[in-house]
């Protein structure tokens, strides 16, 4: 099937098998290996990306379902060499160890903060229920998300949320194989 998908600001046009999972399309076809696969059942959330600004588990979607949509991955968050405040908060709060869950965790945290601008401990924990981490015990992840919330508050600094998908500028399709 033919699909056209905007991924991290670039529009790709590709022929794909209907059964190809979105995560495999990102990793194998586009080389977007920042997004990873941790399980087969949608439980671990390591593969979380944004589809039109909302978090989805890219192992639970076919690439063809992303046709005509915009996908943002962990690799598309930083702008002009500046990290997204959630990325920065994960680093400064030591919210990662092996880092395998981190891309999905960060993408889910951004989605959570879009709905809850100042979440308490329990809200963060419930909001991250679909993302497993085996290293951190979640303590510093919760702290990082709350820290990021403060960094992203109006007046807390530059308007870091400017790179929502509305601002993604489509570029020339570069094609797949």
């Amino acid at each position, binding site marked *: 099937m033919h699909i056209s998908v905007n991924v991290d600001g670039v529009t790709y046009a590709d022929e794909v098998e209907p059964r190809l*999972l979105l995560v495999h399309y990102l990793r194998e076809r586009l080389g977007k290996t920042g997004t990873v696969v941790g*399980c087969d059942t949608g439980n671990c959330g390591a593969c979380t990306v944004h589809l039109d600004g909302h978090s989805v588990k890219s192992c639970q979607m076919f690439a063809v379902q992303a046709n005509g949509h915009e996908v943002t991955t962990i690799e598309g968050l930083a702008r002009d060499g500046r990290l997204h405040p959630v990325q920065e908060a994960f680093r400064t709060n030591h919210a990662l160890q092996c*880092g395998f869950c981190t891309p999905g965790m960060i993408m889910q945290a951004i989605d959570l903060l879009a709905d809850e601008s100042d979440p308490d401990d329990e809200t963060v924990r419930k909001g991250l229920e679909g993302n497993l981490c085996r290293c*951190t015990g979640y303590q510093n992840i919760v702290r990082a998300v709350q820290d990021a919330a403060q960094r992203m508050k109006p007046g807390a600094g530059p308007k870091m949320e400017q790179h929502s998908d509305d601002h993604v500028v489509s570029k020339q399709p570069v094609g797949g194989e």
Partner: protein
Amino acid sequence: MTATAEPEVGKARLRKEDARLITGQTKWTDNLQLTGMLHMAVLRSPVAHARIRNIDCSRATTMPGVAVVLTGEDFAAEQGSLPCAWPITEDMKSPPAPAMAVDQVNFAGEAVALVIADNAYRAADALAAIDVDYDELPVVLDLQEALQDTDLVHPDLGTNKCATWVYDSAEAGAGTNVEDEIASADVVLERTFRQQRLIPSFMEPRSVVVDPNADMFTVWSATQIPHILRWMLSAVTGIAEHKIRVIAPDVGGGFGGKLQVTPEELLCLLAARRMGRPVKWTESRTESMLSAHHGRDQIQKITLSARRDGTVTGLKVELLADMGAYLRLVSPGIPVLGAFMYNAIYKFAGYRFVCTNVFTNKVPTDAYRGAGRPEATFAIERMMDELAAELDMDPMKIREMNWIKHEEFPFTTVAGLTYDSGNYEAATARAMELFGYEELREEQSRRRTSRDPVQLGIGVSTYTEMCGLAPSRVLGALRYAAGGWETASIRMLPTGKVEVITGTSPHGQGHETVWSQIVADRLGVPFEDVEVLHGDTASSHKGMDSYGSRSLAVGGTALVHAADKVLAKARRLAAHMMECDEADVEFASGSFSVRGTSTVRTLGDVVLAAHVAHDLPEGMEPGMDADATFDPDNFSFPHGTHLCATEVDTQTGMVKIRSYVAVDDVGTVVNPLIVDGQVHGGLAQGIAQALFEEAVHDEMGTLTTATFADYLVPCAADLPAFITDRTSTPATSNPLGVKGVGEAGTIASTPAVVNSVLDAVRHMGVRDINMPLSPERVWTALQGGSADDVGDVAAGGLGSIDSQGGQS
């Protein structure tokens, strides 16, 4: 230590590793794409014990994209046997462990065939077209039944008993005869605990890529042990060791689960050699749970004797340990690692440990975070609570009267180890203060009196562990096949920058950061000027890798020694350059000076002089590099006091952790941020054993918890916020004073949680509940269910399984 303006050791440095991990610029093994690369998929046995009558690959072979389909018969002549490096006794039974089953399968999940195809989807498609005929054999699952030898896992061995390993304090001359202590005791308690089977559940599934370029095999693997893997791949295949290069790139967690030489690593290597092209294998999560090794799975019979005043006298441990179907790299030694820890921080007069390792038709067991020591700590900490309950004493008081006092260090225990340092009083005092122990006891009393449906429990765990694995001579005495040293090299570059090569192999621990801090401090160079190289046998040719909380205590010490060698040589050259006596040279903040003068040469000046080598002292070699290998003369012994308060809903059996305080003494702390993180993660895994996780096999030997929907790795909402703090008594066995922290949280927390739940419901007639303490089990126990009934209640979720091995 070299004086610098602000010491690096002790500083909460943000990690160097994070920049790539938070932006997706990672190098996981599965990210690799090589030209001409083929993909391997593995067909796994759906049955636990059977003869293979026939494998028909004809349909699979003709499927699109399939290059070849191979079975055990195809590999029989070249696959050898996977290594077991720890024959714990001279007469240990060790069956051949083929990477791929040839004529018999011994656990559900064992490899029986593989497909090599041009992409992973097509390889998986072809698996479904392979027809295997099995003649099923009786399945051996239960440890006690296995010992009857009615049905045999490996008929050729004639028994399911693998080995029996014994330690006796009287025979060792380290204590009295435990039977005498038991016979003369006022109080004798006998309890049986079950250490359920766990699955390590590292987040990154295992992956292997082998590139057979020219006559050199380059192996990328998601492994904790690149050096051991290279050695073992060579030993098993006969490929010369110098023709194998192993690279562990970014590795996404291990927890002992990647301390292995896996069937798939070997098969991928053999397949790549056969095809003459690169081959990749990446497992699905279900494959990981079906075939990567599991942990724990022991039955512990414990007998403790004491005087009426609460003084403990004797401890007898009789273990049954489930090896599963085969002995993997260190399987038989895992329970033995616990043998020296059952006596823990207490002063027993007599101690005896007998462990019997048993084969069953289940996934092999091996190292999982703590490896033998969590089991030991659980048993003794549960027993101390049992004794307190029996004598109606406060559980902390009974520990205090029996533990080694801080002025008694160094202390040689009844298990023959010498604990170098510790202060149990200090850690406990701090933990009690942070916890609010007395107030919680008062609340507990109120809830009991008012028959509150939600009861409060308080659990104590005053643990120690042995880590920093390990003195090579001790490992040799325990019949382990390798040593326990670690190595480090420092390359001083002409511009003054520093490359550090370590034999440790981090997979989340932050060695790039911490090793940089140590070297920066020692050499007086900026933290940013140090680059740490690891995990590639081409650059780091020697090492014993990372496990057993050893990396800092052993590998960090090697690094200190290498830095000291650099400084010793640099001091001599500096004296030559400054035309003074070496004895008059002082070193501080990265500069050499002549005592009492203003003459100064920076380390960079000296390194450059050594590099150009125009004017060196007589006999001095050019360059300023140094290597050091450190073999510790003792283990290190972190300890701590953990306190857990749980609320148990007696109407539903639901357990909620209300507060958790961990005060750990891990010796000197190099990076407090990283140490706290290690404790948090360790606590989560120990709590998970207590409350959530269990690998369950059904009566046919099928693993019914082979997905994350069924095997309950806790999520953020399942865990509380932890309160952590530290006390510190530096280790005396290494110059940094460090003890290791990787396993501490896991070892300490499981008994703290279980003791807490039992403390909440003991007054309602509950004596024990098997782990994990699911709501169903707690509720059943509260209804008066017997321990055995309770043990049969599964804790897992839906119990689903994908018989196709979870191939996508």
